[in-house]
């Protein structure tokens, strides 16, 4: 059965940003976010049953602050080409980027998780935001047509932190995880 991972912006933020004076929890979250990116790199070309998704809204937010690369010859505007920076291109290629249909970054991720969970495999929304679950419940409550109070068990997908996902992946994919660890130690 396919494992569908839907990533919120915290994965990219935690993996690539340095947090001055970070707590041990934040450092753990950073290490696990980095592990997940490494896992995507290691498995994306191997017919893996893991599908990683993020929203166009998350990627756009990321891209908007990465300078666009281009040739600008000035004399002919139609020859001007602009492209996202190389790192963004490489990151985009690790994921399926889907338009969540709404500008709000957080809500776009919830919408994608809801849609995906209705179709394939096991869906897990990955976020290091401490109040993510509460936000999701509020989202369902806001748009629910009934007056029923939304509870944790009404959410059709699981919400995990990067640390929880790392533990989950390490339990089920030991060989891949050993390869990742070897690469980090420079043995591969």
């Amino acid at each position, binding site marked *: 059965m396919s494992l569908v991972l839907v990533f919120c912006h915290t994965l990219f933020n935690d993996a*690539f940003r340095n947090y001055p004076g970070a707590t041990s929890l934040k450092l753990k979250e950073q290490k696990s976010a980095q592990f997940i990116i490494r896992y995507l790199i290691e498995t994306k070309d191997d017919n893996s049953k893991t599908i990683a998704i993020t929203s166009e809204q998350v990627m756009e937010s990321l891209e908007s602050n*990465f300078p666009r690369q281009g040739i600008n010859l000035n004399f002919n505007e139609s020859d001007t080409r602009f492209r996202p920076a190389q790192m963004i291109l490489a990151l985009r*290629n690790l994921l399926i980027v889907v338009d969540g249909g709404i500008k709000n970054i957080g809500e776009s991720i919830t919408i994608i998780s809801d849609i995906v969970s209705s179709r394939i495999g096991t869906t897990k929304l990955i976020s290091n935001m401490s109040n993510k679950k509460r936000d999701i419940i509020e989202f369902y409550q806001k748009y629910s047509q009934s007056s029923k109070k939304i509870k944790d068990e009404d959410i059709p997908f699981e919400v995990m932190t990067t640390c929880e996902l790392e533990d989950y992946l390490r339990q089920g994919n030991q060989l891949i995880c050993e390869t990742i660890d070897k690469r980090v130690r420079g043995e591969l």
Partner: protein
Amino acid sequence: MVTEKKLYDDVQFVKIENLKGRAKEVAVTQGLTNGLALMKISINSLPEYEITPVKGDPLKVLMNLAKEDNIDLDNALLKSFTP
């Protein structure tokens, strides 16, 4: 002399053993048969492939891509996701 910075239309991590066609030919001429690599593609008329084997941590390769483009990651990410 001003050298123009090379632009890539696509950048992706690949497993060399899974490559096909012209990309595989490029890898073979470099003596590469398997392992993780970074493939940069530039499209003019016929795609050009530049394949660099990844040794060690691929995350460092990603961060080096940002460096090549003069991106201050901390600053860019902070701005990206600050509401």
